[in-house]
């Protein structure tokens, strides 16, 4: 998937993946897609909940070799 920006939060612990995502998202334009990579297993629930609450759309996610990748579209 084409992403406007990629955030690498691999190895980072809570709350960093979400904090980094939020910071990056603030700089993007509406409709842009952000790609987030993380290894914190809590990110699965965190990213879903965060997207829902902030109104951004979690388009897709996958898990490969312990790395979680999320694509989130800015509202």
């Amino acid at each position: 998937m084409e992403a406007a920006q990629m955030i690498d939060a691999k190895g980072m612990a809570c709350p960093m993946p979400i904090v980094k995502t939020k910071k990056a998202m603030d700089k993007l334009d509406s409709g842009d897609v952000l790609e987030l990579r993380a290894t914190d297993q809590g990110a699965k629930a965190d990213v879903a909940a965060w997207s829902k609450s902030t109104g951004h759309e979690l388009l897709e996610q996958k898990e490969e070799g312990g790395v979680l990748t999320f694509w989130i579209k800015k509202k």
Partner: protein
Amino acid sequence: MEEKKKTNIILFSGDYDKAMAAFIIANGAAAYDHDVTIFATFWGLNAFRKEGGVHTDKGRMEKMFEKMMPRGAEKMGLSKMNYAGFGQKMIKNVMKKHQAMPLRDLIAMAQEQEINLVACTMTMDLLGLKEEELLDDIQLGGVAAYLAEAEDGQVNLFI
């Protein structure tokens, strides 16, 4: 623009682990676009202290308190298994391994995310803490300042 949601945390505890929990929630809430305020009172004020000594003019009792209490976040002990500070050092090593942020960094990140840090002046007086002993950009306030935020807060925690 719609009104931002609010998260308010009272940090009463001076334990390293509990303060970590408070600052992780606060930083998370800021990422949720909430207006976040941490009110520190009693032992929680130690998290707002500058590291190292700050020369201030105060009485004997206040000086004693100043020496007995942890100077700054990284000097705070664990609520369980502290073993005179040894447990705290151990857990910090484990945190490093898991790339969890130490409390000092969580506080810096909170300030970077424009989280309001408010120190309770009544307990500052009780513990003999002066404003110049606290980190920069700490606001001072009392119960009314907390309640003003809390009454329209969506998340209110006492830690």
